[in-house]
């Protein structure tokens, strides 16, 4: 796909966000309009920090975030076009579901109470229930109803399917697909469940240890990486080409490699297409080895890939 033809809902440039000992750094990514972008990475990779920075809840230490062409945070017009679904409902636990629209509606310029009521009915959320009496699945659906009722163009979801049963997860995927019928809509969601990415995402950002390991279309991720497996001895000359080299208990080694490096490995190795899961796992492994090497005084250089 020609990247120059795609407009971007979000452009993040050289972002640095420090959170105690952790830092989200050198973040240079774009979220294309009209696509579902998945942010994936292991726990602690920086997914939530990235979403909070996009919302303006964390001030960047360096770099810029551009939202719908306007510098952010600080641009209310751009901010109003975001709908947010976080791990918890943004409502007081004592509120009754049916009263939420009346309470928070005035805070939004384009709140549609009729749409909100309709979504509650469709999602089968009882209006007379208190927020703290809802199940996890109902809470996510309530958050979605609240996010969609002010007609956003960008939907930000932070691990929305975490803790959901398969039926609720399927419902969530259906709602996201329905939202994406409008080509001006964009979704950015974080997850550590890679099967969701394969099912929903067009574009992917792999975060690892606060760095972007890969950013690009999902198809390109599968084209760009491969998995190599073989029996020791491991060819030392091929070591720089590997990402997250692991030795299994059976003695077989496994590593992620870039597809252009396949020629470095001999005929006694097996090279397969890498799944999204493989990429996430091996980048995490690579970062862990790099941390250990740095602690022991050796070189440390986690890989980074980006097509945009």
């Amino acid at each position: 796909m020609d990247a120059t033809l795609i407009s971007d809902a979000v452009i993040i440039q050289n972002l640095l966000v420090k959170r105690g000992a952790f830092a989200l750094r050198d973040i240079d990514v774009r979220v294309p309009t009209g696509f579902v972008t998945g942010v994936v990475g292991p726990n602690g990779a920086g997914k939530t920090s990235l979403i909070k920075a996009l919302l303006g809840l964390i001030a960047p230490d360096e770099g810029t975030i551009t939202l719908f062409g306007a510098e952010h945070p600080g641009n209310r017009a751009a901010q109003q076009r975001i709908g947010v679904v976080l791990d918890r409902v943004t409502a007081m636990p004592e509120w009754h579901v049916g009263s939420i629209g009346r309470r928070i509606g005035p805070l939004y310029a384009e709140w549609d109470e009729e749409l909100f009521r309709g979504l509650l009915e469709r999602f089968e959320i009882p209006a007379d229930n208190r927020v703290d009496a809802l199940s996890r699945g109902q809470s996510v659906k309530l958050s979605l109803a609240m996010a969609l009722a002010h007609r956003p163009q960008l939907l930000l979801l932070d691990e929305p399917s975490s803790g959901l049963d398969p039926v609720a997860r399927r419902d969530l995927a259906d709602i996201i697909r329905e939202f994406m019928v409008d080509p001006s809509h964009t979704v950015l969601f974080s997850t550590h469940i890679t099967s969701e990415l394969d099912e929903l995402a067009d574009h992917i950002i792999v975060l690892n240890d606060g760095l972007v390991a890969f950013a690009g279309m999902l198809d390109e991720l599968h084209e760009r990486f491969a998995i190599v497996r073989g029996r020791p001895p491991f060819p030392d000359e091929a070591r720089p080409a590997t990402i997250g080299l692991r030795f299994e208990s059976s003695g077989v080694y496994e590593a992620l490699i870039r597809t252009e490096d396949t020629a470095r490995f001999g005929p006694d190795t097996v090279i397969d297409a890498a799944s999204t899961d493989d990429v996430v796992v091996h980048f995490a492994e690579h970062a862990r080895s790099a941390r250990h090497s740095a602690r022991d005084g050796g070189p440390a250089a986690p890989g980074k890939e980006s097509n945009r």
Partner: protein
Amino acid sequence: MIATFTLFDVRNFATTQPLRMILPLALVVLFGASVPIPGAPIVIAALIASITTSYYFQGDERGMLDTLYAASSISRPAVVIGRYISALIFAAAAVGLGAATTVVMTAVRHQSLSWPLALGMLVAAFGIVSVALAVQLPWFFALGFTRGRPMIYIPVGILSIAGFVAGQTGFLDGSIQITSSGVPLALVSILTVTFC
């Protein structure tokens, strides 16, 4: 936007956990009926109102309302100014109730109300609320409720100690004597409001 947020904030404070509003106001009245010092409920109301300011921020954390504000049409300056106004509205209601209690109890006890003293109490109440809000709100906005929690007690504690010392050393009007029952009652009330 400021008015919209203030309305939301006051309504949320008053209706989400009504006991948190009713109990402090009830304590103001309780003081009026218990402490035989004309005008004392006015100052006590200001101290109680200063403690309850933190409730707004506690609500923000419990309901993740900061995130709600961040993704709404309300600007951050409107949230900050609106929060100051909400806190002032509650303080005004508490001090107003303290003043009404003073007037009613003075009549019930067949005492004469010294208007200069009552005015002095109102000025003191205004000073207490102003100092507390000026110190507490920036702190809570920066740190949130949980991390900023010690600031609930610090302004009120300092002001209470300063007032007590000033009273005992005769710095204030010597005609006012602190009764033996007044100090423990004040402490119990402040602790009740703090931990409820």
